[in-house]
């Protein structure tokens, strides 16, 4: 029965397949090529970009984008990033200067030291008072909870509205004293949009978005609220055109990922009863081990079993975080590590390996042919077409294997391919909400003073930034964005942009109003 269905589907898809294959052989005109590379390697063309790329030559421009360190970064961008101090801080510094609830409680209870800096000290005192008062109120009256909820929501809404009309600078200042914790997430989000719109190293920014999404973590999961800034900066950004294996290692040891996929809690089964107190009884947790293979490396059909998941989880026991709620770093704890022998994908990992077990697993996974294919297909789906030609994916996978997972080499194979600059790829993809909004702000040369309202528009279209709860990240298949709620949000964004009604964003209405409105039209939704 199942064979019959498959057969029917194959037959149904066949004519389409042949047609599509021919389109990937069909060349683009010079103008189309320029338009195409700008729409794929950047968040969209700014006024004058097409002329610049044409003058430089498409191939040369691609090569330049593949070497972002050779491109002088926009001073306008650097000035914006300068306004947001959290972007540069370590997670420990963030936890102290933008205290988390846990940190405030710890200080209030005398479990952590009050900071020396007088200004920071004042903030701590005020906020921990508020926490204490809130805890007392909660104890008092449970029945008023609903009213309180409503009141709290009212305050939050007012705050949100007020923040919405501020500039990035004013917002940073306001949040630092009222709700420091929120500043961390706000600045991360704002910076992403500033970079997408203003950076000269566009491909680099597109790739940071792509790889963050590949190794997704969820900003709103507990400690990840203040671990994500460092995650993107230290575990993703440095490697997007480097070795894939380095990125896997960096994410595997990043507190944000260890926390998000729970590996920090995972310890050897036989160590279960050794923890102090009954409440601390712990053991193996499979979450990271599974997603590492399914989503980060091999792919779901990459040839691993449930047994492999358990064995990989054993290898990563003891990979944990030093005090996640205070912004702690990666730590390997040998005494809770499973010291026994393991077998992963048929490879024996001898007993007593300690931290090397996990490193060995990563080596096995990144060298696996399934990983070469999985990573190549995903890149091709982002840059070429929702259903990329298998031949191209195979060539990219060959480059991956030959180069030891060199992502710049894999990108070059793809970007220099006939398929990339073909009619099959041209305008074949729906823009994601981020691409749609950032592209509109670029095309209209918008002046930005606060990117939160734009981030809100992106969220309404279905892609809240840094807030995909599931480890899959957002789909790279453009057609997933095609639906009525998203379409309506796109139209409404275009209307408010054209009428200069979006806070934090200003366009030259005389020149760009008509163009902005046009961005709600069907032609603008593809890249």
């Amino acid at each position, binding site marked *: *029965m*199942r064979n*019959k*269905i*498959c057969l029917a*589907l194959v037959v149904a*898809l066949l004519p389409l397949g042949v047609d599509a294959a021919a389109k990937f052989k069909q060349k683009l005109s010079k103008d189309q090529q320029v338009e195409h590379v700008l729409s794929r390697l950047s968040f969209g063309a700014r006024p004058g970009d097409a002329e610049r790329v044409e003058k430089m030559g498409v191939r040369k421009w691609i090569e330049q984008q593949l070497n972002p360190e050779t491109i002088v970064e926009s001073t306008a961008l650097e000035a914006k990033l300068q306004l947001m101090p959290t972007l540069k801080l370590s997670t420990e510094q963030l936890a102290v200067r933008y205290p988390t609830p846990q940190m405030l409680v710890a200080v209030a209870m005398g479990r952590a030291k009050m900071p020396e800096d007088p200004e920071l000290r004042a903030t701590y005192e005020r906020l921990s008072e508020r926490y204490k008062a809130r805890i007392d109120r909660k104890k008092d009256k449970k029945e008023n909870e609903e009213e309180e909820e409503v009141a709290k*929501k009212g305050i939050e809404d007012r705050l949100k509205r007020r923040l919405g009309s501020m500039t990035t600078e004013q917002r940073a200042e306001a949040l630092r004293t009222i709700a420091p914790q929120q500043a961390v997430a706000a600045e991360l989000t704002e910076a992403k949009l500033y970079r997408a719109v203003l950076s000269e190293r566009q491909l680099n920014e597109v790739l940071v978005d792509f790889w963050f999404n590949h190794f997704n973590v969820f900003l709103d999961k507990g400690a990840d609220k203040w671990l994500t800034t460092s995650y993107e900066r230290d575990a993703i950004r440095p490697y997007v055109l480097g070795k894939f294996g380095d990125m896997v290692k960096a994410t595997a040891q990043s507190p944000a990922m260890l926390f998000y*996929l*729970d590996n920090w*809690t*995972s310890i050897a*089964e036989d160590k*279960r009863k050794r923890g102090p107190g009954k409440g601390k*009884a*712990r*053991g*193996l*947790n*499979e*979450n990271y081990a*599974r997603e590492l293979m*399914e*989503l980060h490396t091999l*792919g*779901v059909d990459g040839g691993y079993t*449930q047994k492999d*998941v358990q064995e990989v989880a054993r290898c990563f026991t003891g990979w944990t975080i030093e005090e996640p709620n205070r912004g702690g770093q990666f730590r390997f704890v040998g005494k809770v590590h499973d010291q026994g022998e393991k077998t992963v994908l048929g490879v024996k990992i001898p007993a007593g390996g300690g931290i090397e077990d996990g490193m060995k697993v990563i080596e096995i996974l990144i060298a696996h042919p399934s990983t070469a294919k999985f990573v190549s297909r995903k890149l091709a*789906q982002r840059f070429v077409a*929702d*259903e990329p030609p298998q031949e191209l994916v195979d060539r990219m996978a060959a480059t991956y294997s030959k180069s030891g997972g060199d992502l710049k080499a894999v990108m070059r194979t793809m970007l220099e391919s006939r398929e990339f600059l073909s009619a099959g790829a041209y305008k074949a993809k729906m823009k994601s909400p981020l691409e749609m909004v950032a592209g509109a702000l670029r095309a209209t040369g918008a002046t930005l003073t606060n990117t939160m309202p734009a981030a809100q528009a992106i969220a*309404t*279209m*279905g892609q809240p930034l840094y807030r995909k*709860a*599931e*480890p*899959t990240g957002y789909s790279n298949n453009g*057609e*997933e*964005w*095609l*639906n*009525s*709620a*998203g*379409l*309506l*949000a796109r*139209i*409404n964004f275009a*209307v*408010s942009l054209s*009428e200069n009604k979006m806070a934090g964003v200003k366009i030259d209405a005389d020149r760009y109003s008509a163009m902005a*409105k046009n961005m*709600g*039209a*069907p*032609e603008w*939704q593809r890249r």
Partner: protein
Amino acid sequence: MATRRAFLKNSGVAMFGIGASPVWLERAVASTRSKKILVTIFQRGAADGLNIVVPHGEKAYYAGRPGIAIGKPGSGENAALELDGFFGLHPSLKALKPIFDEKKLAIVEACGSPDATRSHFDAQDYMESGTPGVKATRDGWLNRTLGKGGERSPVRAVSMGPMLARTLRGTEPAVALNSVKDFQVRDKMAGEEFMSRYAASADTQLKGTGKETFEAIRLLESLRKTEYAPAGGAVYPNGRLGQSLKQIAQMIKADVGLEVAFADLGGWDHHVNELPVLSNMLREFGDSLAAFYQDLGARMEDVVVTTMSEFGRTARENGSRGTDHGHANVMFAMGGGVKGGKVLGKWPGLEREQLYEGRDLAVTTDFRDVLGEIVTGHLGQKELSRVFPGFTAKGSVGLI
């Protein structure tokens, strides 16, 4: 990776742009007025069914979950609520207990997919496409329940949220909806202009989605103008599920021609310290369903609400007071036509040798048996082989 091409939308629905006849709309809506309605709810992340409907009669349940088991009925404040002497409801679901007692809520135990995957993504994909193990299926089973042709309401199929659910993708028009109130183009003139631009587009996919969108906007216009007041003293929780169900109730009562609706709630993947989070989520879940039931009142006769989650969780707790990915799970069905007040399905047991691969609750009822019975018995869609191709029902679950 699943193949998900969009669809060339069914052109059986007459093109209706500016100047379309409201009479057409009236007729389309009237033709569906007394129709049966199906609301499906997806708990994304693999909810822990064993802590939702608690097998308190199983010794192995308590042995395997020393840190996270729900107490036997009568064992104190956080004890399960007795259902039938063997199963009990999680205490946070107390709002659903009266509905179970009124026999309008049925529970089916040990449901799931014949496919063994423990990948969230694949398992959700299969449960939404309705074809376990077949990744190439382009459309979803809920879309395939919709009859073809004739005059149909543009909001006969609604997916709550910013994305169109996989299960509603397909040839029949289906609308994704964030909020009824905001479902409009802010500038009316611009709205008219965009409507004609989408209608004139050579891009068939965008043209189709545009058409669905503008038709739905027009139909929902009257609903936007008044604040919705739930009936029967129903209070919907503020969370996503409560607000989704509230708007679905609003559309049902406004007779806009709704036939199937989809809502989801994520965050059920409880690998760590499960108890407090699950308790909060179940309160929202139970209170939302109960509010919907109360609000619809007599109209509930025409409606069935069913819940599902991609797979269950390990029978034993893991090392972090949570649970890892498992196999079988529990499904709910609520509504006038449901033979409720029972825990249905064959219980496979929790002793080690009874578990699937020695660790998970075994599947004894295919999820398509449960949905199939609702599709045929409630929606009256007799072509089950179209809804679940390649599947033969294994006999009655006893739900409808």
